[in-house]
């Protein structure tokens, strides 16, 4: 199982309605992106991190492990803000105000990333997907997404097993060998994915399958108190940001 999804199933907020957590996390996400990065991103980032480590009880190490890849992209992505290539000053020159701009973009990215993690770490995807039809996503698309979700884990497991077997036979000893081994994994996954889908289809056809695999969703209801408190928290973040930034 993937680390974020596994943590979502262990979350104390796991049985809350996805809508509750969407109001809180996506409210903070919207604030992180829409408000001026200083001080908005800093406040949103602090609140999201506090919620992750506090009420949502996500270990700090797990937040770091999940956040470091997008942080790597963000750091690489802000490097061009620090220098100018060409222009009258020379081939490569420091951009005036570059470090400030880079810091603001980095702060906004970190804050928005933490808000997204707040939703991901508390909401199993399997519980959010069936509810997408209510947001206007066509039912067949939701069905494909749900099937994809169910098949992803067995395929990831298969890929891991093949990779370990290949590594034990020096399949990754050189770049050339690694490419051959990866092609072997992709080929085997394609064959297995389609063979499994066909077996599943045969089995379901015998049980009257008509293009839909309904499953019981968690019967959680929207918690008005949680939603009100979330909306109030987001409103407070916006108000404090505008007051401090004024």
């Amino acid at each position, binding site marked *: 199982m*993937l680390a974020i999804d596994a943590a979502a199933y262990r979350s104390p907020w796991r049985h809350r309605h996805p809508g509750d957590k969407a109001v809180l996390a*996506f409210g903070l*996400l919207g604030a992180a*992106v829409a408000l001026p990065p200083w001080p908005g991103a800093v406040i949103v980032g602090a609140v999201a991190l506090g919620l992750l480590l506090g009420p949502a009880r996500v270990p700090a190490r797990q937040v770091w492990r999940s*956040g470091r*890849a*997008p942080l790597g*992209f*963000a750091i*690489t*992505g802000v490097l*061009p*803000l620090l220098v*100018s*290539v*060409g222009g009258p*000053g020379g081939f490569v*020159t420091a951009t005036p*105000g570059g470090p400030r701009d880079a810091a603001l*973009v980095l702060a*906004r*990215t*970190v*804050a*928005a*990333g933490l808000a*997204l993690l707040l939703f*991901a770490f508390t909401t199993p*995807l399997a519980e*959010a997907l069936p509810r997408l039809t209510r947001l206007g996503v066509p039912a*067949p*698309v939701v*069905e*494909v*997404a749900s*099937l*994809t979700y169910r*098949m992803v884990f067995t*395929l*990831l497991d298969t*890929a891991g097993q093949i990779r370990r077997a290949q590594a034990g036979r020096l399949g990754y000893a050189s770049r050339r060998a*690694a*490419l051959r081994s*990866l092609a*072997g994994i*992709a*080929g085997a*996954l*394609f*064959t297995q*994915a*389609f063979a*499994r*889908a066909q077996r*599943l289809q045969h089995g*379901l*056809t015998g049980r009257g*399958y*008509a*293009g839909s695999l309904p499953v019981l969703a968690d019967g959680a209801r929207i918690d008005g108190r949680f939603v009100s408190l979330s909306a109030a928290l987001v409103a407070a973040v916006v108000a404090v940001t505008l007051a401090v930034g004024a």
Partner: protein
Amino acid sequence: MHIAEGFLPPIHAAAWTVAAAPFVVHGARALTRQVREKPEGLLLLGAAGAFSFVLSALKIPSVTGSSSHPTGTGLGAILFRPPVMAVLGTITLVFQALLLAHGGLTTLGANAFSMAVAGPWAGYAVYLLARRLGGSLGTGAFLGAFAADLSTYCVTSVQLALAHPDPRTGFAGALAEYGAVFAVTQVWLAIAEGLLTLLVVRLLAQSSRAELVNLGVDVPAVKEAKA
């Protein structure tokens, strides 16, 4: 190359969502029509989505000594066609955002435009052109995957340069800067993904010929596939 959550200003995030929407909606309609006509095809589409996701989670050794992930858009476009890839690619991006924290929801439109629209269409066009000019399945797959990867990288660089233009040299300067920064890994990655796709389709032409033919891929006779 996923643009991280929050990296784009809100107006750019919204604009790229609007730009990607017609392609994704068109793909969703095509998929819905396909499923209504052939309900059993739903399971194959689910398998295709899972295959795309797992393919994008594989690690290709990078020139910088670390590793990168293939986009899988070239192979996906050759196997499932660009309209379906617009939907499968977007689903994969949502999964990557919520299961791996790669990309994001506010940047979903921009990432979908580069990885689920531009990449597959460019890759499929180059693949078709190569085949019509007499290229083998392997050559077409290599060129298609290379073009898909490179166009994804170029579109992402344009998106970043538009969002963060250089104060002195403007959009052109920023495009050169982003292009240079990401070229270190992305050009090698495009070549590596092209080679990987070539090996995969050669393997599939031998082991899963019937499935490829069912998907509408023009597979050569067994003798040519072994060459």
